[in-house]
């Protein structure tokens, strides 16, 4: 058996590993296996590849891999709140790698005169996808880490400009297919793709980055597919397609849960109105102390905790866990209502709560909890805003109108923890905070919940 054949066999064995890795994500108890399966797949794939006779030296591979590991390990240690940035960065790296391979292949084949028009076409595809994912991912990461302004940067005719750039890049690619002699055009394609990536993200508000990131996820997947076409490698195509699909499906889920169209997310410059709210400051809100809150919570028979982005910012999940323990110990039935787009990533809240050891069978999905809300004694809103904004149900003109929300307002009493009356991601005011059955607990979520827990244990006394 030639090394190529052995490699092919490894690839054949690797593909099902990746498929199983993803299938096992269908439920938490099988999910642990996913990583093992994925890693096995990688080992097979890399192992098989290293056998390729074309490889004359392992030196550069080893050095580069070592560097990659050196950077990879710390990147995996980031706090969970930084996961979105990390993801964006990783999209960028993925696109970057695909782009570089494409570029290298182009010049190799150009030199050896083996640049068939088919190869040229797929290389152009790979390079364009790779480069725009690279810069796009970096931009997204930057915005999420708030290193770059999270405001949508808009200017007249910007969509036209981006569009022209992209068509130009594709056009040049097409030209190279027809007339490969024009190799001077290739670097231009690269440049255009890189710039396009930046322009694609600039006009998008920071809070839309999670959605953008999962779009980039599918681009990264597709550039891997393109690489597969270039290198005639089935495994690259299959694995790339799986990623592409994943990113695609996740973005759709997010858009649905925000009741926004894909185009609105990508070109809507959402959140540019971040200041529209303030006006309402004047109106009076009832605010309460930690002791009042403790009182209410301990005497309630059922409490639904609705966490939001604020809990993530404040890193309050462990305190929330303490509160959960104290209340359940006192026979209060505590549930967590998790909105699909609460926080800044899909499943954001679930991970944080899981990190704080809150049993996942206490997490209830929006559609299951809403019917129960009217019977709930206390809804404790922790740094959530848009996902509990009744305007989504009532106010036709609201930018979030039609977005499914958790009906906190329908519970007997609402306790809302936030630092100020500032709006959330959607930049709009929230009637909930002015409602008669709502008590505000102003302050940093971590701080406030800490106090409440103290008050509770103080009372409950032990």
């Amino acid at each position, binding site marked *: 058996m030639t090394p190529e*054949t052995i490699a*092919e066999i490894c690839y054949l064995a690797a593909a099902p590993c990746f498929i199983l*890795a*993803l*299938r096992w*994500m269908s439920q*938490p*108890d099988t999910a*642990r296996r996913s*990583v093992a399966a*994925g890693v096995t797949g*990688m080992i097979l*794939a890399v192992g098989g*590849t290293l056998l*390729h006779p*074309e490889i*004359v*030296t*392992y030196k550069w*591979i080893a050095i*580069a891999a070592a*560097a990659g*590991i050196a950077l*990879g*390990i710390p990147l995996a240690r980031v706090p969970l709140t930084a996961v979105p940035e990390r993801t964006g960065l*990783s*999209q960028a*790296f*993925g696109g970057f*790698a*695909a782009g*570089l*391979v494409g570029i*290298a*292949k182009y010049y190799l084949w150009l030199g050896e005169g083996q640049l068939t028009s088919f190869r040229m076409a797929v290389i152009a595809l790979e390079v364009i996808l790779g480069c725009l994912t690279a810069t796009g991912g970096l931009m997204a990461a930057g915005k999420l880490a708030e290193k770059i302004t999270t405001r949508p940067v808009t200017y007249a005719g910007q969509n036209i400009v981006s569009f022209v750039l992209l068509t130009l890049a594709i056009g040049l690619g097409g030209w190279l297919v027809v007339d490969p002699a024009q190799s001077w055009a290739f670097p231009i394609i690269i440049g255009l793709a890189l710039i396009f990536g930046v322009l694609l993200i600039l006009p998008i508000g920071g809070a839309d980055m999670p959605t953008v*990131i999962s779009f980039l*996820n599918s681009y*990264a*997947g597709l550039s*891997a597919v393109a690489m*597969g076409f270039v*290198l*005639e*490698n*089935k495994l690259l195509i*299959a*694995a*790339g397609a799986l*990623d592409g*699909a994943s990113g695609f*499906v*996740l973005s759709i889920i997010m858009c649905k849960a925000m009741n926004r169209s894909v185009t609105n997310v990508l070109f809507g410059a959402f959140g540019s109105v971040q200041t529209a709210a303030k006006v309402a400051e004047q109106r009076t809100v009832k605010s309460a102390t930690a002791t009042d809150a403790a009182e209410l919570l301990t005497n309630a028979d059922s409490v639904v905790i609705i966490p939001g982005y604020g809990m993530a910012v404040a890193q309050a999940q462990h305190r929330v866990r303490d509160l959960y*323990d104290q209340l359940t110990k006192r026979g209060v039935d505590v549930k967590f209502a998790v909105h699909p787009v609460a926080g800044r990533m*899909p*499943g*954001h809240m679930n*991970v944080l709560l899981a990190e704080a*050891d809150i*049993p996942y069978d206490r997490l209830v*999905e929006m559609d299951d909890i809403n019917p129960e809300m009217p019977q709930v004694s206390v809804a404790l809103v922790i740094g959530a805003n848009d996902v509990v904004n009744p305007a989504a149900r009532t106010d036709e003109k609201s930018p979030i109108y039609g977005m499914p929300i958790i009906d906190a307002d329908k519970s007997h009493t609402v306790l809302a923890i936030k630092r100020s009356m500032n709006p959330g991601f959607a930049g709009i005011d929230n009637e909930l905070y002015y409602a008669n059955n709502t008590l505000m607990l102003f302050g940093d979520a971590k701080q406030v919940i800490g106090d409440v827990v103290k008050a509770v244990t103080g009372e409950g006394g032990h």
Partner: protein
Amino acid sequence: MKLDLLTALFVFMLAAFLGLDIIRRVSRLLHTPLMSLTNAISSIAVIGAIIIAGEAHDTLSTVLGALAVFASTTNLVSGYLITDRMLRMFKRREAPKS
């Protein structure tokens, strides 16, 4: 091993359908780890990079290849590690401490 365009497209088509079906069935709880897992999987690009870096055909391609290996290894390592880290948390739910 030659792979003609049509066969490649065929594979792509099947894998894409499969991907759509699988991802739709992923638990909402796990969407964040799912994202990092797919990042990790997309680091499969490393197999393309390795060959180019290993061929050491000329400086340019070697440098590009090595950079690509670096980038995708980073994804590979960090992707799997962080996914594992997150999933462990969920795993422990089986027997809640409280």
